[in-house]
């Protein structure tokens, strides 16, 4: 059969170049992060580039990283999860209550994880089986979980059990907070799972072309429910760790967690249209706003600028993604 050539060579080269460009997106944002770190270090070598400050950075980012990792999976399926902050708070509240009743921290941890999972599965069922847009479903469960948390607490923040706050909250291993290790380990496992396992492959396939995935024999609904369940479970874990770290349930402190997580995921090169993204990109995307905030504080720039800059970076990231899609689909 005579199928040796597939169009004029220049076209093919341009196409391959474009494929490489997309792979390079993670490298580009990594470069942005490195530049930020170098610039801040050079401007304030004695205060920015200290191990104390860098540990601070990592601690601030760790819990958000869990939410953003779950969000990466969800957005790769071309979905969205606005409920993560609410689920985090609700899980922290139920965990506190569980420890109060049982006196066992383990029971508290299990309660947080299972509560988060339950909210996530609810999201998944409504999105996959109910055919309600994810934006609406998770906006609804955000309100329900935040409102539910306020109902359970009477609107007053609950204090974390003392031995949780003073135990896990302060524990360190090799000088790094245990919470950071936990978040890093979970993120690493999920990063590998997304890139290397069948679960990850189906996640990409659904976001890329759900109908094709269905025709290929992927159980699309079941997979979507699992992905939203995973995001909820991670929000539950984040709730427990946040309780340990800050010592309170923080009922009013997490209403913009969802936006922070989405911003991190999108800055990290994951497409809001689904099918494209990596956990590594999300890790970098989490650190860019955190480094900016920290750097501006140390430089004495008013920290409000961080919000402005992150907003602009977010818009730019989506613009680049749109352009790539448009060129691909032409």
């Amino acid at each position: 059969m005579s199928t040796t050539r597939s169009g004029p060579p220049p076209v093919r080269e341009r196409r391959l170049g474009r494929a490489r460009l997309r792979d390079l997106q993670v490298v580009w944002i990594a470069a942005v992060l490195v530049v930020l770190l170098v610039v801040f270090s050079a401007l304030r070598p004695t205060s920015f580039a200290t191990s104390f400050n860098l540990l601070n950075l990592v601690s601030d980012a760790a819990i958000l990283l869990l939410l953003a990792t779950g969000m990466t999976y969800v957005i790769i399926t071309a979905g969205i999860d606005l409920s993560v902050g609410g689920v985090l708070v609700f899980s922290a509240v139920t965990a506190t209550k569980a420890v109060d009743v049982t006196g066992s921290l383990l029971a508290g941890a299990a309660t947080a994880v299972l509560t988060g999972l339950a909210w996530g599965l609810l999201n998944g069922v409504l999105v996959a089986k109910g055919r309600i847009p994810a934006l609406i479903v998770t906006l609804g469960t955000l309100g329900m979980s935040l409102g539910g948390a306020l109902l359970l607490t009477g609107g007053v923040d609950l204090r974390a059990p003392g031995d949780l706050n003073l135990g896990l909250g302060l524990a360190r291993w090799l000088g790094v907070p245990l919470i950071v290790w936990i978040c890093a380990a979970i993120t690493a496992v999920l990063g590998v799972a997304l890139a290397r396992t069948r679960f990850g492959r189906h996640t990409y396939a659904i976001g890329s072309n759900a109908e094709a995935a269905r025709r290929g024999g992927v159980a699309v609904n079941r997979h979507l429910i699992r992905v939203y369940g995973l995001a909820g479970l991670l929000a539950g874990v984040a709730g427990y760790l946040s309780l340990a770290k800050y010592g309170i349930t923080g009922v009013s402190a997490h209403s913009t967690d969802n936006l922070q997580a989405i911003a991190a995921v999108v800055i990290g090169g994951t497409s809001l249209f689904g099918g494209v993204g990596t956990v590594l990109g999300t890790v970098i995307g989490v650190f860019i706003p955190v480094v900016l905030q920290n750097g501006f504080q140390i430089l004495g720039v008013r920290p409000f600028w961080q919000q402005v800059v992150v907003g602009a970076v977010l818009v730019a990231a989506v613009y680049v993604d749109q352009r790539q899609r448009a060129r691909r689909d032409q």
Partner: protein
Amino acid sequence: MSAPLLEARGIVKSYGHVEALRGTDFTLLPGEVVALIGDNGAGKSTLVKILSGSERPDTGEIVVDGQRVEFGSVEEARAAGIETVYQDLALCADLSPAANFFLGRELLKAGLLGRLGVLDNAAMRARTQEACERLGVRLKSQAAPVSTLSGGQRQGVAVARAVTWARRVVFMDEPTAALGVVQTRRVLDLIRGVRDSGVAVVLISHNMQDVKAVSDRVEVLRLGRRVARFETARVSMEDLVGAMTGAVEQAGEVEQTGAAGTGPAGAVEQESPQ
């Protein structure tokens, strides 16, 4: 003459008040390329959906290798060795050719890693490469996503995928509709390659040149019924178009012959030409 590989008898399918198929018959013999033609709304796509398991008929029966079957899902049709190349190709543009090839049938690594769901990408790439080469589909890179391929290459990947998994029949719905001259020729070569590998092909097409070029037989649908069957080598373009549009009427073709299955090896089966 061999027994039919796939046969549909008296298929009726309505969508609300619209009768898409009104007692359609269809016959496919082993190792042949049959073109299924008809004007818009003749029921070609509906018939393919039913025979490939994505829709259920209201009445009528499907027989595969002499066994009556009922396809409740695409998976069941697939288990019977029937694959479909959809008009939209059903490819995930963001995934590599190999990932698309093995979508829903991923190969896992051996041992513990496999049990954890870890993919064996190297094996999938190798088998995809091998299948594509066998069918003459040249891919520059196995790693680049499908979105970077040309229309012809995408078609090639979709066809190669279907052929690799099909043991009996491949349906191809308008495989050349979006392609240029060179790419079309390549797809027609592919179809011949598929037939030569022993898998029967049903080609749904509007393009009479393609039909004449590649098919062994032609079955014509009009208004939800099979109205004519031809041997491609002995039929003129005018006859084909005439049967499609109704200018050459063969209504009640099946009832009058009383044989829905194998036809005589004669030229044009016209029982009641008007």
